[in-house]
């Protein structure tokens, strides 16, 4: 029953988020601020994770494919497919659910307990729309760029490790990257990314917006937001894969 209550309240919350804004001209600036806050400031962690993720995938694939009849370029092919299909869109989105999601829940939750959301409501401002919609739009716009950068850096990480350690010849790695490439895999990854961006921002904002109490509850909302958005991302990942790839 509790989960049904949350689902119902989440969709009611979304109806307010997408309700009519008071001054839509103000939203453009807010979206740009949020792009900086949620996207640009996440670039460092995304880049670092991606380079090492690509390197590790390459080493693990190479060390597990040692049969003579399997061509070495399969290492590059496997690294590319793993990165594009799953690691960049899903793992990076899970990382962002932790970083960005907890940030949103804490920020909105603090505004709630410090009565700043009540202040907006009393002024006649649609607080859900004013506070949350720019975050949702910003994440849906900037996350695909982050994921594309992540894909590039992961593949670059794999190439670097192949060049430095010789676990696979760089030429074989590059041949594998180009072998049997289907551009739809990138489209699929970007569709997933946009859906995950929506999930991260809206679920985190939902938990922050409905915070009651004080600092302790803000912390709890932040944790719950990360847990819930991660679970929803995993479920959505399964459903989208079933829908788009099968």
């Amino acid at each position, binding site marked *: 029953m509790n989960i049904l209550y949350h689902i119902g309240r989440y969709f009611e919350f979304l109806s307010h988020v997408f309700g009519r804004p008071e001054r839509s001209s103000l939203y453009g600036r807010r979206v740009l601020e949020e792009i900086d806050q949620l996207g640009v400031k996440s670039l460092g962690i995304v880049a670092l994770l991606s380079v090492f993720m690509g390197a590790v995938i390459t080493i693990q694939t190479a060390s597990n494919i040692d049969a003579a009849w399997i061509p070495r370029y399969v290492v590059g092919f496997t690294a590319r497919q793993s990165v594009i299909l799953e690691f960049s869109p899903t793992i990076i989105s899970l990382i962002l659910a932790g970083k960005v999601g907890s940030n949103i829940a804490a920020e909105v939750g603090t*505004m709630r307990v410090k009565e700043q959301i009540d202040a907006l409501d*009393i002024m006649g401002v649609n607080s859900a729309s004013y506070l949350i919609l720019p975050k949702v739009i910003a994440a849906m716009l900037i996350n695909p760029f982050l994921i594309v950068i992540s894909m590039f850096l992961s593949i670059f990480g794999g190439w670097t490790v192949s060049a430095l350690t010789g676990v696979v010849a760089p030429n074989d790695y590059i041949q594998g990257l180009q072998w049997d490439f289907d551009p739809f895999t990138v489209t699929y990854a970007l569709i997933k990314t946009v859906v995950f961006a929506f999930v991260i921002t809206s679920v985190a904002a939902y938990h922050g917006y409905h915070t009651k109490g004080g600092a302790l509850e803000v912390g709890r909302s932040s944790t719950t937001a990360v847990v819930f958005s991660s679970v929803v991302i995993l479920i959505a990942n399964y459903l989208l894969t079933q829908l788009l790839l099968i």
Partner: protein
Amino acid sequence: MIEVIGLSKRFGNAQVLTDITATFAKGVVNQVIGKSGSGKSVLAKCIVGLHRPDAGRVLYDGRPFHELDLGEKRVIRQEIGMLFQSSALFDSMTVLDNVMFPLRMFAGMTAAEMVKRARFCLERVNIVGKDALYPAELSGGMQKRVGIARAIAMNPKYLFCDEPNSGLDPQTSILIDELIKEITEEYGTTTIVITHDMNSVIETGQNILFLHTGRCWWTGDRKALLASENEELRAFVFASELMRQARRGLLGQV
């Protein structure tokens, strides 16, 4: 003028407000007093529309707030200014941006006009030269004053103040009381102050509503308060020996 008629509110099994009927006059500071948990804040939240009452009506100059559609409610909300107990200033905005916020959202002014109006409101509450500071850089008293400046930025017809003196030293507390009284008389607002500060009530009380166990227990002005024989009211207002002595002294003057 704000009229509350037969207002009741319950949360789960707890009946917080029962059949409250009161009139809050224009141009005077109306004070709502009562013990913690007596329902003062819930009453204020029902009046401003943050809570929907289970029964009863709230009339803003005859307009039944809870029966209006969203657009009509927004019109009334733009006529409301509210000072929160915590000031509720937006942390990410400077002092000037905080005061300009309602103007940006609703006033349809040019940037220069908004700055001029915001600076006027800040000067009105004696905050000068602090435009670029953030709320965290201000003292509690200054935050309250910026909160008042934001509340009056749109020339509100109705002003709500939730415990405006809480956490303030006695001198600042008196300044805030005087400021609220001046603004109320100058602009003819209907002002409702939720307060625990009995000094403020005895000093400035013009129309006092005493809530007890979620009911409207007593109403009157400061003179009637001093002379009242209502047991619960006297136990609440004159709880300390100092207040009882003050009462005896003031009754001698009345």
